């Protein structure tokens, strides 16, 4: 593997609470090169929180600690809010899980994507508009000119998701965290969006963290996969070996997915073992 773009050692994120603190991420260590790294795991297992920690976006009163957290040689643990803003504007970016929540409800799609071009890429208004339309087309929006003028509440779920992706991609980041970026897309559009991300990794050398619940997609698209459970990384494997993973939680996940080929009356559920968190 090439020089890691990102190195994380012993990352912990805790949300203090009235009675007990929530340990959302526990002792997570991993590296990311110019590759596609998948993160799968139970709902609430800390996938999004891990992503947010890497971009300095953990909300108050969350506490982030780590032994090492560095990006392209820069120590992220010492970043000030200004440093973070500079990094997030251009070099690293995240496609959030709730597209409509993350979009500004009172601004049109065109204005929101265009803003990034104006602010971070120093384009003229005309260039920004042209670039915005090109990005909407790239993510397979059927009618880019019409969509340009729509407000977030006028978009379908999958259109909102693609607008988010377009907005993140205009800045051409070299590190992207995509949190459930294709869960609202039909499978044909999903594969085309994956192809865009794939090209950015293989042609531009972008590093990608791909968070998803879709095991079929993760195993066919990613290079490596981290499996999280209860805030911990319980297993790491090559993506194509996901079907043969060893950890009982990973195996249970694979067994719980419905399949077009095998008909079951009841789906297998996961019996959780407290030992997994030790």
């Amino acid at each position, binding site marked *: 593997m090439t020089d890691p773009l990102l190195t994380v050692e012993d990352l912990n994120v805790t949300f203090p609470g009235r009675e007990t603190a929530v340990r959302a991420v526990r002792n997570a260590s991993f590296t990311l090169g110019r590759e596609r790294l998948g993160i799968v795991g139970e*709902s609430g297992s800390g996938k999004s929180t891990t992503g947010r920690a890497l971009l300095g976006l953990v909300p108050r009163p969350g506490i982030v600690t780590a032994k090492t957290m560095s990006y392209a040689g820069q120590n992220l643990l010492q970043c000030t809010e200004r440093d973070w803003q500079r990094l997030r504007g251009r070099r690293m970016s995240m496609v959030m899980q709730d597209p409509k929540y993350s979009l500004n409800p009172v601004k049109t799609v065109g204005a929101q994507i265009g803003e990034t071009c104006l602010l971070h890429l120093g384009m003229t208004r005309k260039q920004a508009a042209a670039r915005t339309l090109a990005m909407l087309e790239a993510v397979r929006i059927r009618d880019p000119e019409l969509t340009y003028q729509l407000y977030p509440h006028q978009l379908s*779920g999958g259109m909102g998701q693609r607008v988010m992706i377009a907005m993140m991609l205009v800045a051409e980041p070299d590190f992207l965290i995509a949190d459930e970026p294709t869960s609202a897309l*039909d499978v044909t559009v999903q594969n085309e969006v994956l192809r865009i991300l794939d090209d950015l990794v293989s042609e531009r050398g972008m590093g990608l963290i791909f968070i998803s619940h879709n095991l079929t997609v993760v195993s066919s*698209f990613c290079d490596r996969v981290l499996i999280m459970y209860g805030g911990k990384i319980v297993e790491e494997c090559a993506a194509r070996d996901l079907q043969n993973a060893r950890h009982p939680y990973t195996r249970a996940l694979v067994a719980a997915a*419905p399949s077009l080929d095998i008909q079951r009356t009841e789906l297998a559920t996961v019996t959780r073992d407290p030992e997994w968190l030790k």
Partner: protein
Amino acid sequence: MIAVDDLNVTFHNGGRSIHAVQGISFNVAAGETFGIVGESGSGKSTVLKAIAGLVPSTSSVLEVDGRPAARRRSRAERRLLQLVFQDPYASLHPRQTVDGILREPLVIHGVADIDDKVMAAIADVGLLPMHRFRYPHQLSGGQRQRVAIARALILRPPVLLLDEPTSALDVSIQAEILNLLANLRQSYSLTCILVSHDLAVVAHLCNRIAIMQLGKLVEIISAADLRSGTVTADYTRELIAASRGFTRAPSQNQVVLS
């Protein structure tokens, strides 16, 4: 139980109109689970909203349990039909705790044993007692979606419209929710429409499945046809092929990023 004949929905934006749903017809029998899959932006969510009376529409017939789907519904009609939205964030009140969100429909409809029902609803969707007094922003994406499902189910409505209920959930929680829906279907006559992008999910839960593209109905097939690939439309065939996973081979109509 649900009858839809020649349903049309048009949105107006500035000078342009968007024909989101164009002449769709189908029927769903009592106790049946009907699936809708199809292209993003093809009008699936809009069909559900029209049935729930949440967007203006025109049709020859649009009925739930023999009553026309009206825009303003009485309390009894709201109890008849519940809709789980695609965006859990948008549908949960940000300043209400999980407890408040689940309690509200029970209070409005004057139901007894509210505390027990709230606790049971939380357990049904695989959440824990510790989540009960959290606000939506203190939950993960999948936890929020489960709150929305719990709220829709809490009054045991005879008709349930589910818009991508499990796309934000990991497969283990998805399995629990799908099993829960299947069990509810057996314990009382539950009529469902399920919109999903996951063909394996609709094949698992639905009897018949409608395929939509560009506001129109492409075809209606049985779950067995979907599994065996016995379909007539090319679009359906493309969907089935694409659901097998990502392939690195470039597509023909690839757009090159500048």
